[in-house]
C-alpha cells in the first residue's frame, strides 16, 4: 500500500495538520459517556470484595431491596455467563468464591447514586476467608491452591493457547529456535539474571463507564467508554448467546484507554442490571479507587534471562523465561504472554533461543492489555540485561547492542526474515546516542556536576514491537460523499486520543486530492451504522485503517469517475479530477463537479444515473500465521516498529535521589503522517513509561489486599515530572505495505524507558537495579548494598524490590 509519491508532492501526508477533535474537546463540547444521561436512567454502584480469596457463604439483599428507590440488585449466583476473548474464564459477578481484592460481588441500580450506594451498603455478605495464592512462583508449586479448579471446563482460543488444568498455568507459550544447549557450549560467557516489576494501573483520566439499556425483545444498546466496539459486541453476544444484530454498541469520545478499555469490561454487569430493572437504562461509573482493583491492571512479571556470548561479543544463545502474573483472570494476559514470548529477545539477532512464557493465575486484580502489551515489562529486564552483559564481558554497552542488532538477512525468534524495509534499529540507536551526546559529558554537563555534586549518567536502549493480533485482523473504512462534494468517513477504530482520525483524514484527503477541510472523520462509533474493526489496540490502527482509507478513497474515485464518464460522454481513462470536479484531460472545460455527482448525476432533462457515491475500503492483515505451539515458529508480525531512547540522569550518590535531565526518543515510523501527533505519542508515551519507571506499582499486604488503590499512594507523573528536556525524532524507512509507508508508534514510546533510566543510574553510580519502579530508596539501597526493600507484597519474601542481587556467572 506504499504510495510511491515523492515527499515534496505530498499535500497533506507528513504536513502540519490540525487535530480534528481538539476544538470540541477544548470547549467542553465533546461528550463522553461519563457526561451522558438517558431518560429514566438509573445509577449503579458495585459491592466489591475486601478479600483476596474467600468463599461466599451467603449474600443477603433483603435490607437493600427494602430501600425506596432501589430498582434492581444482582448477585453472582443468578448469572450463568462467562466472559473472555482468549480464555473464557470470568463471571460477571463472583460466583461461590471471590478470587481477588476488589472483585465485584453484587450490584445495585437505583434512582440516584446516593440510593444505589445505600443499597450496596445494606447488602450483607458472609465470607469464609481462604488462603490466597499471591505470588506466581508460589502458584506454580505442586501444593498451591488452585485459583481456577474448573480450568478444564473453560473454552479458549485453541490455535494459540495452552491452559493446563489442575495447575495455575493459564498458558505456556513455547518458542524454540536453533539449539541453545549446543550454542552455550560455544560461548565465552554465559550470564543469567532475574528482573521483576509489579502490576501497574493504566489510569485513563476517564474511568470505565457504561450505560446499558436492555430493551424490549432483548434489544440491547450499550454506550461505553471502550476501545473496541465490535469486539465488545462480539464478546457480549457470545456470553449471552445472542444474535449480533440484537446488540448495538456506541462509543462516543473516550477519555483515554491505554489498553485498559480493550475487550469487554463492566458492560455485561450494567446490562443485567438494566434487564432486571425492566429495561430502564442503567449507568455505572467506576470510581477512581475501583479503577485500580475492580477493573484490570497490567500484569506483574518475573523475567529470567540467560545469555551466551561468543568471544567477539556476538550473542549466540538466549534462554528466556517469563512468569506472567495474570492475577485472578487470564483472558487477556495469555495473549500478553504470547506476544511477549515471540518478541522476547528484543531487536537483536539471536541465532539460538528458547522461550518459555507462562501465564499464571494468582488471587490478585487481573491483568490486561496495557500500552506496550508486555514489552514495557520485559524490556525493563532485557535492556538492563544487555547493559549488565556488556559490563560483564567488558564491552561498551552501545557497541554491544550495535554488534547484535537485527538487520537485513537476520531472522527473528519466530523465523521471520528481516529485510531492508523492516526498519532500521541501528539508525535508531545511533540517532538517540547522538542526540544526548552519549559518549561523553558536555562542558555544560561537567559544570553542572561540579555545581550540584550530583553524578550524571547516560544510557541508550533499543526496542521493538509488532502488533499483537490474530492473523485475520481486519477493518473497513466507508467514505460517503455529501451533497456538496465533501466526504464523511466512517470507521470503528476508536480515536481515544491517539490522533488516528486526523491521520485518516490526511490520508483520505491525500488520496482523493481534496483539501483536508473537505474530509470529515466521524467521531462516535456505532456498531449498527459503522463498518467492522476488530479492536483499537496494538498500534495497528494506522496501518490497517490507513490502508482501508486509501482503498475506500480509490473506490469512491472509481465510482465517481464511472458516473462522470457517462455524464461527460467520455472514456473513463481520459478523466482526471481536482478537489471540485472531474474533467476530460484534453478538454478541461468539459467537467462535472463532485457536488453534481454526489447523490447521483441528473441530466438536464431529469434523467439520472449513478446514485449516492460511497467508497468502501476493506483491509485484512496479510500473510500472517498462527505460531507453532511447540516451536513458536511462524509469522505473527504485520510490521515491526523499532525505536530507541537516549536518557540522561543526575543522581545523588548519597541518597539515591535523581533528576531525569533529558530523554530523546527515536522511532522508525516508516513515514510520518502528522508530525505533531508523532511527537505527542512519543513524548506522552515516554512520560507514561517514566511513571512506570519511577513511581507506579501495586502494593499488597500479605493477605492480598491492595494497599494503594488511589492517587494518594499511587502517584502518576505530573508536569513537574517531565524531564528538563525532551525530544522525539522520526526515522523513515518506508513500510512497503503501510499507508504511504507508515507504521504504528502508539505503544512504542513507553517501551524501554525504565531500562534507560536504570542503565543511566547505573552508569552514574554503579547501583545495580533489577526491579522497577526505581524509587529513590531503591537506588539508595543498591548503593549501600543493603538488603533490598520488599513492599510489593509487604513482609513477603516474594515479589521483592531486589536492588542488589548477585550476577550468576557460569563457568565455561
Amino acid at each position, binding site marked *: 500500500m506504499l504510495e510511491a509519491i515523492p515527499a515534496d508532492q505530498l499535500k497533506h501526508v507528513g504536513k502540519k495538520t490540525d487535530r480534528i477533535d481538539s476544538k470540541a474537546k477544548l470547549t467542553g463540547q465533546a461528550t463522553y459517556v461519563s457526561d451522558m444521561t438517558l431518560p429514566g436512567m438509573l445509577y449503579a454502584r458495585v459491592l466489591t470484595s475486601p478479600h483476596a480469596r474467600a468463599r461466599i457463604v451467603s449474600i443477603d439483599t433483603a435490607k437493600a431491596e427494602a430501600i425506596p428507590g432501589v430498582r434492581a440488585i444482582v448477585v453472582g449466583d443468578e448469572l450463568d455467563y462467562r466472559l473472555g476473548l482468549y480464555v473464557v474464564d470470568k463471571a460477571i459477578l463472583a460466583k461461590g468464591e471471590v478470587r481477588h481484592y476488589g472483585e465485584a460481588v453484587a450490584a445495585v441500580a437505583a434512582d440516584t*447514586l*446516593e440510593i444505589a*450506594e445505600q443499597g450496596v451498603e445494606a447488602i450483607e455478605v458472609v465470607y469464609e476467608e481462604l488462603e490466597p495464592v499471591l505470588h506466581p512462583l508460589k502458584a506454580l508449586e505442586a501444593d498451591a491452591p488452585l485459583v481456577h479448579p474448573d480450568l478444564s471446563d473453560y473454552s479458549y482460543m485453541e490455535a494459540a493457547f495452552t491452559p493446563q488444568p489442575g495447575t495455575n498455568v493459564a498458558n505456556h507459550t513455547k518458542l524454540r529456535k536453533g539449539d541453545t544447549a549446543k550454542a552455550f557450549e560455544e560461548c565465552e560467557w554465559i550470564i543469567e539474571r532475574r528482573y521483576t516489576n509489579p502490576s501497574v494501573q493504566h489510569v485513563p483520566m476517564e474511568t470505565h463507564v457504561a450505560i446499558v439499556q436492555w430493551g424490549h425483545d432483548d434489544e440491547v444498546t450499550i454506550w461505553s467508554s471502550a476501545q473496541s466496539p465490535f469486539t465488545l459486541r462480539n464478546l457480549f453476544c457470545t456470553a449471552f448467546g445472542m444474535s449480533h444484530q440484537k446488540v448495538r454498541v456506541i462509543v462516543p469520545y473516550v477519555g483515554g484507554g491505554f489498553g485498559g478499555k480493550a475487550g469487554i469490561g463492566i458492560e455485561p454487569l450494567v446490562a443485567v442490571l438494566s434487564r432486571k430493572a425492566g429495561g430502564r437504562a442503567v449507568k455505572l461509573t467506576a470510581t477512581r*479507587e475501583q479503577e485500580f482493583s475492580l477493573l484490570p491492571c497490567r500484569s506483574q512479571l518475573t523475567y529470567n534471562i540467560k545469555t551466551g556470548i561468543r568471544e567477539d561479543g556476538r550473542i549466540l544463545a538466549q534462554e528466556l523465561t517469563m512468569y506472567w502474573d495474570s492475577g485472578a483472570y487470564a483472558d487477556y494476559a495469555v495473549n500478553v504472554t504470547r506476544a511477549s514470548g515471540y518478541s522476547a529477545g528484543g531487536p537483536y539477532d539471536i541465532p539460538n533461543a528458547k522461550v518459555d512464557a507462562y501465564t499464571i493465575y494468582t488471587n490478585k486484580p487481573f491483568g490486561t492489555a496495557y500500552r506496550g502489551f508486555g514489552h514495557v515489562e520485559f524490556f525493563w529486564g532485557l535492556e538492563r540485561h544487555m547493559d549488565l552483559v556488556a559490563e560483564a564481558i567488558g564491552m561498551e554497552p552501545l557497541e554491544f547492542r550495535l554488534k547484535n542488532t537485527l538487520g537485513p538477512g537476520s531472522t527473528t525468534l519466530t523465523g521471520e526474515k528481516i529485510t531492508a524495509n523492516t526498519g532500521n534499529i541501528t539508525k535508531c540507536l545511533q540517532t538517540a546516542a547522538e542526540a544526548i551526546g552519549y559518549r561523553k559529558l558536555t562542558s555544560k554537563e561537567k559544570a553542572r556536576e561540579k555545581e550540584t555534586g550530583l553524578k550524571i549518567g547516560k544510557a541508550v536502549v533499543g526496542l521493538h514491537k509488532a502488533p499483537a493480533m490474530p492473523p485475520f485482523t481486519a477493518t473497513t473504512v466507508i467514505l460517503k460523499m455529501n451533497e456538496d462534494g465533501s466526504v464523511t468517513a466512517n470507521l470503528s477504530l476508536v480515536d481515544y486520543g491517539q490522533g488516528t482520525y486526523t491521520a485518516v483524514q490526511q490520508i483520505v484527503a491525500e488520496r482523493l486530492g481534496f483539501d483536508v477541510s473537505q474530509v470529515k472523520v466521524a467521531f462516535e462509533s456505532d456498531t449498527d451504522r459503522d463498518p467492522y474493526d476488530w479492536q483499537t489496540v496494538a498500534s495497528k490502527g494506522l496501518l490497517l485503517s490507513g490502508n482501508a482509507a486509501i482503498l475506500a478513497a480509490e473506490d469512491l474515485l472509481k465510482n465517481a469517475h464511472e458516473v462522470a464518464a457517462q455524464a461527460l460522454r467520455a472514456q473513463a481513462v481520459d478523466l482526471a479530477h481536482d478537489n471540485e470536479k472531474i474533467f476530460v484531460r484534453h478538454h478541461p472545460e468539459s467537467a462535472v463537479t463532485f457536488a453534481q455527482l454526489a447523490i447521483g448525476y441528473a441530466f438536464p432533462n431529469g434523467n439520472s444515473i449513478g446514485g449516492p457515491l460511497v467508497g468502501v475500503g476493506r483491509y485484512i492483515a496479510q500473510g500472517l500465521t498462527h505460531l507453532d505451539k511447540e516451536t513458536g515458529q511462524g509469522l505473527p508480525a504485520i510490521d515491526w516498529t523499532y525505536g530507541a531512547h537516549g536518557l540522561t540522569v543526575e543522581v545523588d550518590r*548519597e*541518597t539515591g535521589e535523581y*533528576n531525569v535531565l533529558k530523554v530523546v526518543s527515536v522511532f522508525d515510523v516508516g513515514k510520518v503522517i502528522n508530525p505533531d501527533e508523532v511527537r505527542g505519542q512519543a513524548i506522552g508515551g515516554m512520560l507514561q513509561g517514566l511513571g512506570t519507571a*519511577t*513511581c507506579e506499582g501495586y*502494593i499488597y499486604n500479605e493477605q492480598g489486599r491492595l*494497599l*494503594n488503590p488511589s492517587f*494518594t*499512594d499511587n*502517584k502518576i*507523573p*505530573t*508536569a*513537574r*515530572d517531565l524531564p528538563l528536556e525532551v525530544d522525539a525524532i522520526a526515522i523513515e524507512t518506508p513500510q512497503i505495505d503501510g499507508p504511504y509507508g507508515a507504521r504504528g508508534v502508539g505503544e512504542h514510546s513507553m517501551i524501554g524507558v525504565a531500562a534507560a533510566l536504570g542503565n543511566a543510574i547505573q552508569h552514574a553510580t554503579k547501583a545495580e537495579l533489577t526491579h522497577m519502579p526505581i*524509587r*529513590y*530508596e531503591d537506588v*539508595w*539501597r543498591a548503593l549501600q548494598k*543493603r538488603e533490598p*526493600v520488599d*513492599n510489593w507484597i*509487604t513482609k513477603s519474601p516474594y515479589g521483592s524490590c531486589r536492588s542488589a542481587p548477585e550476577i550468576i556467572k557460569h563457568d565455561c
Partner: protein
Amino acid sequence: MLHEFSYVSPSSMDELLTFLEESGERSTVFSGGTDLFVTIRSGLSRPDFVVDLKGVKELGLLTFDPAEGLSIGACVTVNQLIEDTDVLRHYSVLRDAGSELATFQLRNRATVVGNVVTASPCGDMSSPLLCLGARVKLASAGGEREMPLGEFITGVKRTQIAPNEIVRAITVPIDHLDAVGGYKKLKRIKGHDLGVVAVAMITANDVSRFAISSAAPTPVLLPDFPANVEVAEVQKAAQEAISPISDVRCTKEYRSFMVDVFIRRLMEAA
C-alpha cells in the same frame, strides 16, 4: 457526596458556637473542605451537619503586628498565607512549607488551620509552626482556651479539640521573628505529594529549632540548639526523638536516613 448531610453556614461566632454546642458530635466544621470532603467521600466520616466557618468573617483574618506576631484565622488559606508579604518577610519558613503543600488549586481552598487540626503526621504546616512556637486558640460556647501547638496534637489524627469546639486561630509569637531556615520534604515524585518525611528548621537569635513530620505519630519538635551546633548533634537528637514506621510510602530506615540528610542540608544552607 454520596453521604447525605445538611450544610450549615453560621454568620457569627455566637451562632456557630451555639450550633456546635447543640449538635455536638453530629457536626463537623470545615472551611476549605479539602480534607473533610475526601474523608466523607471515602466513608471515613459521616457527619449529619457540615458547618461552614467561612461565614464568620473574623475567622478569615490574617494579621501581623510587630508586637503581637502573626494570627492565622481558621479560614485563612495556604495560598493567602504564602502570598502574604509579612509572612514572607518575618516567617519565611511558613512560605517554604506552605508552597510544598499539595497543588495550587488545592491551596486556594486548603487552610493552614485545617492542615494542623487534621493532625495527619504528614501535614506540611505543623512542623514549621512548631519551630516558630505557635499557639492554638480554641473557642466554644463555654469560652476560650489556648495552648501550645505541641500540646494540641496528641496522636495520629488526634487533637485536644472537643466536639463543641473550633480552632479560632493559630498564633505565631515574635520570639523567632525574621528567622532564617527552610523546609525539606521527601516526595515520591517531583510533583505534588504528601510528605514521606519532612524537616523544618529555623534559626533566630542564636537559636536553631528543628521539627520533623512523618517520622512519628505527631510532628516532633527537637529541643532548642545554639545556632552554632554541630550537624551530628542535631542528627543524634533527631534520631532519638523520632520513631518512623515502614509503610507503602517508605521504610523506616530510609525515613531515618533522610531526616539526617535534610538536617544537614538545612544547616548547610543556613
